[in-house]
């Protein structure tokens, strides 16, 4: 299978591998996928006081396309507000990496991972400051 240069670059030099403290209030964690399906993504975001995502980390079990998709979205979400990050679409990821049709599900999973991380962050924020929950 021939992969795009961008995909191979993200696979070989993945950005932002690692973990943030999942118990911290300003960290949102998304864990999506299943080992039996062959891919699991853990994506974490750290949101600064200004509401911008100041850091993002990932760990992925999955094929090269899954690793590249999650690496790419950690780059994309940094510096964005969570509302902006939420608008990232799997089709954008698939197009950027030129994913072959059988690998589209990897981009779907990456989108799910961001959404799950944001949802986790919001749930924590809601507990802390109920007023901001309407955001």
């Amino acid at each position, binding site marked *: *299978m021939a*992969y795009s240069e961008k995909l*191979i670059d993200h*696979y070989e030099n*993945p950005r932002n*591998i690692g*973990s943030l403290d999942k118990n911290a209030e300003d960290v949102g964690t998304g*864990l*999506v*996928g*299943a*080992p*039996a*399906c*062959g*891919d*699991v*993504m*853990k994506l974490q975001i750290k949101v600064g006081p200004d509401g911008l995502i100041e850091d993002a980390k*990932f*760990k*992925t*079990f*999955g*094929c*090269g396309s*899954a*690793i590249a998709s999650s690496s790419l979205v950690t780059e994309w979400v940094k510096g964005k507000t969570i509302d902006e990050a939420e608008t990232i679409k799997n089709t954008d990821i698939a197009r950027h990496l030129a994913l072959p049709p*059988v690998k589209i*599900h990897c981009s*779907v*999973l990456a989108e799910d991972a961001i959404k799950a991380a944001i949802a986790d962050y919001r749930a924590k924020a809601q507990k802390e400051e109920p007023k901001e929950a309407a955001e």
Partner: protein
Amino acid sequence: MTAITQIRRNDQPIYLDYQATTPMDPRVLEVMMPYFTHKFGNPGSRSHAYGWEAEEAVEKARGQIAKLIGADEKEVIYTSGATESNNLAIRGVAEFYKDRKNHIITTVTEHKCVLDTCRHLEQQGFEVTYLPVQQNGLLDLDVLRAAITDKTVLVSVMAVNNEIGVIQPLAEIGKICRERKVFFHTDAAQAAGKIPLDVEAMNIDLMSISGHKIYGPKGIGALYVRRKPRVRLVAMIYGGGQERGFRSGTLPTPLCVGLGEACEIAMKEMGVEAKRLAKLQERMLKGLRAKLTDIVVNGDLEQRIPGNLNISFAYVEGESLMMGIKNLSVSSGSACTSASLEPSYVLRALGVEEEMAHTSLRIGLGRFTTEHEVDTAVDELVRHVTKLREMSPLWEMAQEGIDLKSIEWAAH
């Protein structure tokens, strides 16, 4: 014996996929060459020297093939490969005897060409029993005994599995089949030339052989069909009645000659080669185990050809590992390499859990594999498994002592 030397160019990856295909032995190519050029006759031409010369060559090769499996040369027919041999054996027997018997027994870990042929026969109204295998990949003989009925015409069990390299108990299966008066077919594509085979001692009635798995050419295979007691077949290809009417079509003389030579070399060198490969297999496994934890060999390690290792590297997905080990040509039991996205049906039949099936690689060693290549492969595997584990959330959880089974994963 000619020296085992590297035959790949230095810019080519290390070839570790000998169950997919093998390079041709240069000695095989050498004997084939004249039959492409000046010895081009049709072995079916009875009226002149060109034909006689070609006929002599294909008959000599037929004898070489027969000798490898303890058969008579009259019992060997040429086909295009093991897929055709398996089709002909199973469909040919089923259709010939269908008025008396309509039941076929096979196993769930057979090659696709056997399973697909059986599926086709089911659609035609035949009954097929697909026997499970044990956790080590081997057939339980009691399960086989219990499955045979007075309607059973054929038992088809592969000699050596193409994914996990395990060797089925052929002699025991043959004995059971003979006692119950059921024909025994074995797909020996991965076995011929690798382990000793004897159609008499093992009571084998039909055997499929492939050229390109034993350092011979692609596009040629053979089917052994027993004469005493006689096995009858309905032909699949009609025409000039070559190959005793079982398989019409002009014989490809160079390919036949190549298959014969490959069998002869295999017969002479099998013992030495098996010992050498067993050492390489052990070297690879030891090398990996010295530096990596959580690796599992799939399939029985003892009842196995020495040229195969099928290993699950827990917490690392197979395709991503293959992308990393660019300098190694292996194959994966993870289905992310195929369009189906389902992991290997063979591994699942052993009860290997899906998450482990996704982490498996098939490593095939063969005649031209060197110690240096094995060492390089170990280094590359260790490096990339370690790197990928560092970025695996499953590895991280396992290190934290989290039981992955306790998590409710959202299947997608």
